[in-house]
């Protein structure tokens, strides 16, 4: 099959690149081996939360503090400023409603009751201007009875440190009660799937009565798996500030974001191939002629341009053997120290060096094989390494901005 662009990887980075190309009229395919890290989303997209352990107030100004081979340094401050304003409008076109901006970090409430910086956040969640000022006096934290992937006491303790009093309550409705028959399947996404219009109406009634005296309601993110209609309905019926807090995975708002982006891409005429894995490529000189997948077998998939957004270790974009770190599809050159002892720190809480491993790329995001640059392949997202996205809070920013950088010529 022939495409203008083929993207390997259907997560946030691959979808951003794919949507941008499809919006420019290209015939685009995404090959995605299983669902992506969006399924574990906190509901916030992080641009740059901290550098060297210090919280960042203004992400743009902090870019200069990053080391030279950080992806943001590769994009460059000026280009970052060109690309950042494109992100939220793209999400909006896909139906993903967000708040936030790139000039100043906002602050979100974590499931453990901590306050953390965030760039843009899905409208499901509360965000604050400042980390030390929460605009509530007393809130009701309403859990679903017997739902164990949500921790109201941690949240209440965290809020108390900021002078906010909480009442903890739990409630249920018959649609959710039915799920209790299974000890293992009462999870956020399963609850979201049994909530229909009528169930939301009864749930809203219960929440209203337990949260009568609170000035805001906090509850686990269990509403709106396919789109945000039910979520808006619940808010309308409760008629009081109502915010969700992320649960243990899988993340309902994250799954919804994935579905909305997929749906938007498909409606643009894009082809999303889920559950398929690229096995190898045919190279001609220093360019890729075709790639081959498990599902399509001997049928070559050809394109003018290929984008590799296959993620890091957890998504199998990179793999470690006892002696080497490899990129398993193309066998691209990878940056990693040869001494295995330098791959990791024995203290699990410290920054792990392997988080920064990634494929070697040139200034135009082209990788190489045995030192030879591949001219029609570019790498985006966490596979390029160069940063510890967990420690610095930059995963979504790197994913989306690197994807935009290769898709949009300045």
């Amino acid at each position: 099959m022939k495409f203008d662009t083929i993207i390997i990887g259907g997560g946030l980075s691959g979808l951003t690149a794919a949507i941008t190309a499809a919006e420019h009229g290209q015939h685009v395919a995404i090959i995605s081996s299983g669902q992506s890290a969006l399924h574990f989303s906190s509901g916030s997209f992080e641009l740059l939360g901290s550098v060297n352990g210090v919280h960042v107030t203004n992400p743009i100004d902090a870019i200069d503090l990053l080391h030279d081979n950080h992806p943001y340094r590769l994009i460059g401050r000026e280009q970052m400023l060109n690309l950042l304003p494109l992100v939220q409008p793209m999400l909006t076109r896909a139906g993903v409603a967000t708040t936030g901006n790139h000039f100043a970090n906002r602050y979100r409430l974590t499931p453990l009751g901590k306050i953390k910086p965030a760039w843009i956040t899905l409208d499901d969640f509360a965000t604050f201007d400042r980390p030390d000022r929460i605009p509530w006096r007393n809130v009701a934290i309403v859990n679903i009875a017997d739902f164990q992937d949500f921790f109201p006491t941690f949240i209440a303790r965290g809020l108390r440190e900021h002078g906010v009093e909480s009442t903890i309550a739990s409630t249920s409705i018959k649609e959710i009660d039915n799920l209790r028959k299974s000890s293992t399947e009462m999870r956020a996404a399963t609850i979201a799937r049994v909530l229909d219009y009528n169930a939301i109406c009864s749930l809203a009634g219960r929440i209203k009565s337990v949260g009568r005296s609170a000035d805001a309601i906090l509850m686990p993110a269990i509403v709106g798996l396919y789109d945000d209609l039910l979520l808006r309905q619940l808010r309308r019926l409760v008629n009081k500030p109502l915010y969700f807090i992320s649960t243990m995975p899988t993340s309902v708002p994250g799954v919804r974001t994935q579905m909305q982006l997929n749906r938007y891409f498909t409606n643009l005429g894009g082809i999303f191939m889920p559950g398929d894995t690229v096995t190898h490529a045919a190279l001609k000189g220093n360019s890729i002629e075709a790639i081959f997948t498990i599902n399509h077998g001997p049928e070559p998939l050809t394109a003018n341009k290929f984008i590799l957004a296959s993620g890091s270790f957890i998504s199998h974009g990179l793999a470690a053997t006892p002696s080497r770190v490899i990129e398993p599809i193309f066998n691209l050159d990878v940056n990693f120290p040869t001494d295995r002892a330098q791959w990791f720190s024995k203290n699990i809480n410290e920054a792990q060096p392997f988080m920064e491993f990634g494929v070697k790329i040139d200034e135009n995001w082209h990788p190489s094989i045995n030192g030879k640059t591949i001219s029609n392949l570019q790498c985006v997202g966490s596979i390029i390494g160069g940063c510890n996205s967990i420690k610095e809070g930059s995963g979504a920013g790197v994913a989306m901005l690197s994807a935009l950088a290769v898709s949009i010529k300045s």
Partner: protein
Amino acid sequence: MLEFSNISPNNFEQCVKCTVCTVYCPVTAVNPLYPGPKQAGPDGERYRLKRSDFYNEALKYCLNCKRCEVACPSGVRIGDIIQQARINYSHGSVGLRDRLLASTDMMGGIATRLSPTINGILRFIPVKIVLDQVMGIDRHRTFPAYTPRKFTTWFRRHAAKNQQRYLRRVSYFHGCYVNYNFPRLGKDFVKLFNACGIGVDLMPGEKCCGVAKIANRMIKQATDAARINLREIRHAVDSGNDVVATSSTCILTMREEYPHLLGLDNADVRDNIMTATRYLYQLIERGEVKLVFKQNIPPYHLAYHTPCHMAKLGWGVYSIELLKMIPGVMITVLDNNCCGIAGTYGFKKENYDYSQAIGKTLFDSITRENPDFVVTDCETCKWQIEMSTPYRVVNPISILADTIDFEATRQANSK
């Protein structure tokens, strides 16, 4: 000793317990008695490998739709693990109802001889109540009508001798549905492929692909039929033919379930087994076949539903891209959701409510789109959608056969 790689062919060791599979399991949301794919699959497997009495009979609720496998980021063949566990550990004997439902070929053979009598009987309300009460076949179901004349009979009398004139040939695996219930689709297939300059051969020993027998744990019968089919497929491939089918489920079964669940190696012919839309798309893309469409095709709105097994094959794209070639027609690709019938599953009285609840998301999305036709490559999806919505469901091969200008296409492909 440290194992550096998997030792299980189904990748069971790769599960990282992320629970993504659960989000996409059609059963989990409607049936709390089902432990869910993670628990029924890799989690339960750890216990079953130690002691077989950890097997849980609730695994029978698995539809074998494979959506968990498509969603799994770690390549675990969750559906295979569950089906294999049912085959290995389930003690209950297979009841009469399940045997009859699963024997699509035997039942079809008898019923076509007795139709239209049998069609009338199966629609007769008291009979439905007896089937419901005595047999456990849900009374809401309507059996697909049996045809008075099998596809193979029609083919032998009206099509076989014309096929000799084509140089390029395929072997058509018609399956039970085309043969006993809906020969029209087989005729459309022959018409379309002939117009494209492709001759159609049948495989004289073709048996049911066995999907329903596997689902109902009739493994010996399924394996016997699979051996015969593989022999027929090898004959066809030796004579230069690829083997194509208009049912995505037959193809998935022969390509994937034969080696994974029945332990039959098909590696030598696996790449030659494919859906009709994939075969046709590839020829068109290579410039070896051309479709010429009728003038003035009404601006139909078609909604394409990807059957679960087509999603697992990853080949919905071929059907979608073929439909996009029809001028003036609007194609909507429906969100990927299970219709709920899963072959014989939805016919069973104990599954009927679950089956309809699973399909609701899909039915609602079809109603929202309000298309002229729903298009899909699976016959049981067709029954389910037609029973549960007011929309007609058509195979993409029939859509193409109806929209091509037969003469012009024939001339464009006759060299």
